[in-house]
Structure formats: C-alpha cells, structure tokens
C-alpha cells in the first residue's frame, strides 16, 4: 500500500505547500472597507430628478411591524396597479435590529435593497455610515407634502439640515390599565394623571391582591419607557452629545423607579413580557407600545383602559418610537426614484390611515388623524383615540440613546441594574455615561 504523499514531504515541500495555502488565503482576503479614506454621511449628489426614469422593479426590506405582512402586500398591490412598478417585499428579519444587522452587512454587496426599514435607534447609524440618502431633493421633486407629517415624528429623522427617513410604523408608549381591577379598587375610570397620583392609588390596587404596575425590560425597551420618568423629573439622557445622567433630575428619576420597585413594591419588573403579564391579569396596569393595543384588546379577558403616560413633577413626558423608511445611497437614481415614489405612496394620508387602523401604529400625517378611516377606528376602539391624542405631547429623543452605537444598550444595563439589583443610580449611570461617551468619540465623532 502506498504511503500518503504527506508522509514523504520534506521541510522544503512542506514550506511550499504552506506558502501555497497562505498565499491563496491572502489573495482571498482582499476586499472589506477602504482603509484611511474619509467616511461619513452621503451627500445630496444634486441628481437632476427630472431627467431620471423610475426603475420598473424595486426591493423593499421590512420586518412587517405589527404583523403587517398582509397589509404591506396589499399596499404593494395597489402601488403596482397605480404605477406599474413591481415591488419585491423581503422579510429581512423578525425585528428592527435584525433588519439593521442585515442591512449593515449588505454594504458593498449587490444585495442592498432599494427601500429599508430604519428604526429610531438605527437610522442615524445608517446615516453616518453613508448608507442612506438625504431626502429633501427627492421629496421636493416628488412633491411630497412633508409639512403634513406629524412634526415630532418627521423631525426624529433630521440631522444636519436634512431628513434621512420618513415616518412609517411609529408608536409611543401608552398607559394601559385593567378596568375590572380599577373598579374593584374604587378608582376613577382613567389613568393616573401624575406619578404622585399613581403612588396614592397603588395601595388600593395592591389591596386587590395584584401587582399594581408591570414594567418591561430589555434593549429598545427599558430606556424607552424610562424617558417618561426621566423627562418628567426634568432630566434627560443627554443634551446633544453631552451625557446628562449625573444631574440631580436624572438621579431623582432613577431613585423614584427604585422606590416604587423596592420600597413601595407598587411596581415589578416582568420576567419575560409585561404585555403578556398584563393581558393575563397578573398586573393592574402597565406601560406598553401603542403597537400592542390591537393585540391586547383582542386577547385580554377584561376591559382595557388606556391613558397618557403619568406626568412627573416637571410635566408631561412621552417619547416616540417605531420605524421609518429610508432609501439606500448606493442605488442608481432610477431605483432611488422608484423607491421614493413608493415611499410617498406608503405614507400618504390614505395609506397611513389604512396601516394605522389595522396595526395600532400612529397615523403619521396630521391630515390622516381626523380622516374618515381613523374616525371609524376611534368609534370602534375609543382607546385608540388616547394614543393618537398623546402624540401632541411627544418630543424628539435624546441623542445619547438613539444616535450612539451601544447607547440604548448601556442605558438599558444601567436602568436594569437600578431596578433589578437595587444598584446605586449614581454609579450605574456614571458607568453608562462613560461607555456612551467613549462610543461617541470612537464611532460617531470621526464620521460627523
């Protein structure tokens, strides 16, 4: 039997083989980012849109927020009937983060979509990476009525005098309460106006043998609803790029959170899903997305009441969330124009009302809020009206959370240390602030 060729390899042959393998690998390693070249946001290339013919076919990456695949398919059908442009709907992930991961990884490949979901914590990263197009010129060419967008929702996507996305499936946190529990506790049929009033009501709710308030956890969530307590106390995560977690107001908000969890025991952090806990009757009230409204109304075996988030000592405070739509910068003008036409169609008054009434997300145009479609929804589900009315109280989010990579994650860790481990708020926030500042300096500042 012949021995293996390897058995007879001398040192020189072994080195030759190693060089062959190594050299091939080195050749294969070509590619990746251009090192040393200036990066940053894409610029408006001054495309003369009047000379561009829209592409016949485009691709849209979505996660179908609010289980909206059928709705999106229907909207595509209507768009194609109107324009003749075919839209390929791709399920690019189960949530915003998964879509974002795929979209970022697609850079430089031939798989970049023509239109992509751009959530409140992701669009800025797309922008500084130069992945998306500033929309002013295209919107003007398409005569898109941007003034009709809800101002807060539209300005969430503004940076450097440009808008980089438009609102699509947008939500706010909402206060949900169990009307049966409220009745049993002898409370008026409404949400508490302030956190001080909640503190007064909590013992009465607890007396019905139920945890008064269920709080959510996890990234994209804890630091979102905590905006309400933080802003209500007069604090903020950041002012522009400067972290403000060490202010007395921010620390006061954190201490209040600890008080209701550990001292008053009027709030408990969910094991898994605070919406499921509330729907199952484990908690008397909770803070959840407006996007959960339709599902909760269908699933709960009790009457669900909704109200504005409670005010803090410094007044009303409500963040916005959800996702917008952005157009990749690397596509051809023809594809970008077709994507722009579809984007305009998806977010027009009629279609935003259609999407909103079937999911629970906000109508993103002010003209849609009082339209016939939405009026029918308010008549059927009065709770929805509260969610829409609360839009007027919203404000744009703090940059430290939504614009800095890891911002939301570091804040979530701090808030969860505070509410799950009774950690010292000063220390937990200081750790988060140091990490976010470092991330800003490394991952944002060089690209601005």
């Amino acid at each position, binding site marked *: 039997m012949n021995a293996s060729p390897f058995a007879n390899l001398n040192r020189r042959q072994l080195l030759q083989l190693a060089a062959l393998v190594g050299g091939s690998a080195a050749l294969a390693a070509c590619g990746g*980012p251009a090192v040393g070249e200036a*990066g940053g946001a894409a610029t408006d290339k001054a495309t003369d849109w009047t000379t561009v013919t829209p592409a016949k076919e485009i691709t849209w990456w979505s996660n179908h927020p609010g289980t909206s695949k059928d709705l999106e398919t229907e909207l595509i059908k209507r768009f194609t009937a109107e324009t003749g442009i075919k839209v390929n709907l791709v399920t690019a992930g189960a949530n915003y983060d998964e879509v974002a991961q795929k979209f970022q*990884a697609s*850079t430089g490949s031939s798989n970049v979509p023509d239109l992509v979901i751009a959530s409140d914590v992701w669009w800025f*990263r797309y922008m500084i990476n130069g992945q998306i197009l500033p929309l002013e010129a295209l919107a003007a060419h398409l005569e898109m009525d941007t003034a009709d967008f809800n101002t807060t929702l539209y300005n969430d996507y503004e940076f450097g005098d440009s808008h980089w996305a438009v609102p699509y499936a947008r939500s706010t946190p909402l206060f949900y309460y169990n009307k049966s529990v409220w009745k049993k506790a002898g409370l008026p049929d409404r949400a508490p106006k302030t956190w001080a009033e909640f503190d007064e009501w909590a013992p009465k709710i607890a007396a019905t043998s139920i945890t008064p308030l269920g709080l959510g956890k*996890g990234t994209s969530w804890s630091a979102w609803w905590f905006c309400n307590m933080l802003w209500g106390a007069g604090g903020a995560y950041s002012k522009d790029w400067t972290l403000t977690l060490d202010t007395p107001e921010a620390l006061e908000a954190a201490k209040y959170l600890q008080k209701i969890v550990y001292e008053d025991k009027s709030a408990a952090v969910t*094991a*898994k899903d605070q919406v499921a806990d509330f729907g199952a009757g484990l908690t008397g009230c909770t803070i959840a997305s407006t996007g959960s409204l339709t599902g909760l109304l269908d699933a709960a075996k009790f009457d669900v009441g909704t109200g504005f988030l409670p005010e803090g000592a410094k007044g009303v405070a409500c963040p916005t969330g959800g996702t917008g739509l952005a157009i990749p910068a690397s596509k051809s003008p023809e594809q970008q124009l077709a994507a722009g036409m579809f984007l305009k169609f998806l977010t027009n008054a009629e279609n935003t009302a259609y999407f909103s009434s079937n999911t629970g997300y906000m109508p993103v145009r002010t003209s849609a809020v009082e339209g016939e479609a939405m009026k029918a929804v308010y008549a059927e589900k009065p709770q929805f009206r509260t969610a829409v009315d609360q839009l007027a109280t919203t404000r744009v989010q703090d940059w430290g959370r939504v614009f800095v*990579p890891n911002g939301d994650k570091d804040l979530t860790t701090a808030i969860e240390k505070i509410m799950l481990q009774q950690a010292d708020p000063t220390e937990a926030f200081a750790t988060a602030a140091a990490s976010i500042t470092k991330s800003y300096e490394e991952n944002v500042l060089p690209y601005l």
Partner: protein
Amino acid sequence: MVPQRKRRTPWKSWLLFLAFAGPNVALLIIFTYKPLIQSLQYSLLQWNIGSATARFIGLDNYTNWFSDPATANVVRVTVIFTVFTVGGGMVLGLSLALLLNRKLRGTGLARTVVVAPYVLSGVAVGLLWLFVFDPNFGILGAVLKAVGLSSPDWYNDPQWALPMLIVVYLWKNVGYVALIYLAALQAVPRDLIEAATLDGAGAWACFRNVVLPLLGPTTFFLSVTTLLSSLQSFDIIQAMTQGGPLEGTTTMMYQIYQEGFATGRAGYSSAIATVLFVVLLIITAVQMLVVQKKVHY
C-alpha cells in the same frame, strides 16, 4: 556512510493528491482561512460594519477589550459556562453511557431518547425551555410551588440565568457525549474485564483501572470537541437570554456577535474573535501535549 537520498514523490501521486484534496483545500481557503485572515485584518481597524470606509488604529481594539471593565464579567461567564457544560457534559454523558451499555429491556428506546435532543435545533430547544422555566406560567414553577417553594427569577437574576442556560445546554448536548462513550464502551475487550474480575477487582476498581484508561482516547476526543462546541455556543443563548439579564449570560462568542452586529463595531468584534481563536489554539495545543503523555492507546 553516505546518507541515501530520499525517493522523490512521483508527480502522479501529487496530481492524485490535488484531485482529492483540491476541492477541500479550496473550501477551506474560502470559508476558513479567508475569514480568519480578514478577521485579523479587521481587528486592527476602527470600522462601523455598515460603513464602506475604516481607520487603521493598530492594537487599540485589543487594549480596549482588555481594559474594558465589562471584559472581566464576560470572561467569568465564559469560564463558568465552559467548565460546567464541558465537565458536566463529560460526567453526565459517561454516566448515561454506562447505564445504556447494560443489557436491559428498553435500552434501545432509552438510547434514542438520550440522543434525540442533540439533533434538535438549538433555537427550538431554547424556546421550548423558556416555557419550562417561565416563573409565572412554567411547569418548573408549578412543580416548585406544589412542594412549597417559589420559583427563582430565572429571567431577571443573572445568578440564576446562567445555571438555566447550562442546564438547557447539557440537556441538548449530553446525548452526543453519551453516544460516543457508548461506542467506546462497547469496544472495551470483555476478556480484560473478566481477567480483572478473576483477579478480584470490584466493579469500581475494574472501571477505574481497566475501563477508564481504555476510554482515554475517547475522553480526549470528547474534551476537544465539546470544549470547542461550548465556547462557540450561540443559538441557545440567543433564543433564551440574548446575553442578559445584565450581561449575566454574555459569553465571548455572544459578545462577538453583539459587538459586530448589534453594536456594529466590526473591528472590536474581530479583535475579540482573534483573542478567542488564540485561546482555543492554546487550549487545544495543551490538550495535544497532554494526550501524548497521558493517554494510552
């Protein structure tokens, strides 16, 4: 005496070698060496994964990782997870294999039951066990309540979340260890055991001095494969805890994913991947040295 010149390998043998090995070598280059070298290259860059450009920053990603206060926790979690899943898996797997090696009724079915979880998808296993551990609705909570105990807060307490993951990982993977050990046990010559028994060795002495040394090569093989698999485990963590609560289940492998894709710091993530690669290389080299000295074939 003049040394005899070694006979050169005939060119036909080389051609044959290339014909057989070529496709594999090509696949290795494309899917193993290329990513490995690219990862090393990226680890020296400050690169947001979605960006077409990057900056060369030397070893900053490495110094940042080693000086990050979070690193100690990630290493601690990785070590605990690895020690318990590898050590626990080997002990449990061997115990199960010894049981399954007995000639009893129903061992065929028992073998299938033990091995079945190994072929299931990690995500499916994770989701399934989430229902079991759920403090409010899970069967485990109900059982504990029935005996007057309250359920630990598996999902919110990092001290409990990691043991939960270890239990699920063991449940899924112990069948693999048991299967390999079972095959090795069946290859142990009966006459050696009979001879030892005739010499007066009890069951334990027989196992300790005859069976266990003969299982040496299998133990070595399993220690390498289960260690690599444990250090690279991702699916169960992603399905059950996503590295939380409070990063209490963030292993190095999970951190690589989080930093690379969730945070988008591709350079930093590549640096951690390189560190993990070097650690694995060292551990495997040490194992190889041990096997040469201690394991008897």
